[in-house]
């Protein structure tokens, strides 16, 4: 039986990818960001997943304004790193576990989640940066070392799905994984955040107190975390802090009680507060 053994939360700041691609992670600005990922990479080697279920958002790269799915599940054989205006990141093509992805798609629709199936899709930094964080430096000739099922969430056009809906989706993903008859180790990633605002006069907003509290309740009192309103995310964590609803999908897929084996928080990476959690699941 497939099992979700861990949940990983991770910011997906594009500049983290750029720092890795340009090999400047040792610079004083970046060193404290990457120091916090050292444990994660060791842990990841020891707990190697067969499949990563990766919840992220597209930043108007694969999706333009013509079609805006709330939840888009990648069912293609593979996903190419996208050109985001600077050329594609020099990282491997992302390979799917297509049969498993289709099973999850079917299970979610029957479980009354109204997902969109994507049979062709490029993937942007929202997906590749967390993989780089966990799997380290990779060239286009390499393999990521895991299969990946991407789930893109609309957090660009208001309203994103609610925190509560995201949590419920996580629970449904768990049911879909638990009903897949293959002995594989699955990790689920919730990416994006933490507090940041990229736009207009309030750009640069960071709310470290709120972010730390969010990590506390997400880990230990998820029933509280799922009640956070959109306007609280917008006001307290900046207009792009809303990305944190994706952490709730991850959390919903885990047990009520989990073990936090790693936490990392640093300000800033570019405009953003970097947050990162590794939660072990004991199901």
């Amino acid at each position, binding site marked *: 039986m497939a099992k979700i053994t861990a949940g990983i939360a991770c910011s997906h700041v594009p500049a983290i990818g750029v720092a890795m691609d340009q090999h400047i992670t040792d610079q004083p600005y970046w060193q404290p960001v990457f120091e916090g990922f050292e444990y994660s990479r060791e842990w990841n080697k020891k707990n190697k997943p067969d499949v990563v279920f990766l919840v992220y958002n597209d930043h108007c790269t694969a999706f333009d304004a013509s079609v805006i799915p709330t939840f888009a599940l990648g069912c293609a054989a593979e996903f190419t790193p*996208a050109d*985001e205006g600077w050329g594609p990141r020099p990282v491997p093509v992302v390979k799917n576990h297509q049969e498993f992805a289709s099973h999850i798609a079917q299970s979610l629709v029957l479980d009354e989640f109204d997902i969109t199936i994507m049979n062709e899709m490029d993937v942007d930094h929202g997906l590749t940066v967390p993989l780089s964080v966990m799997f380290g430096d990779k060239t286009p000739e390499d393999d990521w070392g895991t299969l990946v099922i991407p789930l893109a969430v609309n957090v660009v056009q208001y309203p994103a799905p609610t925190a509560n809906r995201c949590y419920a989706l996580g629970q449904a993903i768990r049911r879909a994984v638990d009903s897949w008859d293959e002995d594989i180790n699955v990790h689920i990633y919730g990416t994006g955040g933490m507090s940041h605002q990229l736009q207009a006069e309030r750009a640069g907003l960071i709310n470290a107190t709120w972010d730390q509290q969010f990590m506390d309740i997400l880990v230990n009192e998820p029933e509280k975390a799922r009640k956070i309103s959109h*306007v609280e995310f917008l006001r307290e964590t900046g207009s792009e802090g809303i990305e944190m609803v994706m952490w709730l999908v991850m959390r919903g897929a885990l047990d009520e009680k989990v073990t936090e084996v790693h936490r990392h928080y640093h300000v800033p990476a570019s405009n953003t507060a970097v947050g990162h959690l590794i939660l072990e699941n004991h199901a």
Partner: protein
Amino acid sequence: MTRKEKEYDDIPGTFVFDADRSRQGYWLNQFCISLSKEEGRQAFRDDPEAHMAKYKMTEEQKQAIRDRDWNRLLELGGNIYYTSKLGAFDGIVFQDLAAMMSGMSREDYRKMMVDGGRSPEGNRYKSEWEKK
């Protein structure tokens, strides 16, 4: 229909990209995303006006593009993930774009971020900004 008041209207210095803004900025955003492909960038380099004319933008929107007026672009329905493609076209990285939009120098903005970012204190409600 008059525009309904929204619960996020009182957040200062922020454009929430909702359906109303999305409708207003549709062609502006589609123009911007054309710059994420090399052929779009080349067309815009070769003849900015001709490339803009392919998208049903208002004259105000086109002027804001010519002016690279980043906040005005947002006011006219642009979304930052789209307008940042125009920034990338100009070779401007995200952080410097953020500095421009918040009316700070590149160095001051960078220092503010290294020092922990813009505090939420005094930045939650428009009323707090009006007092300043």
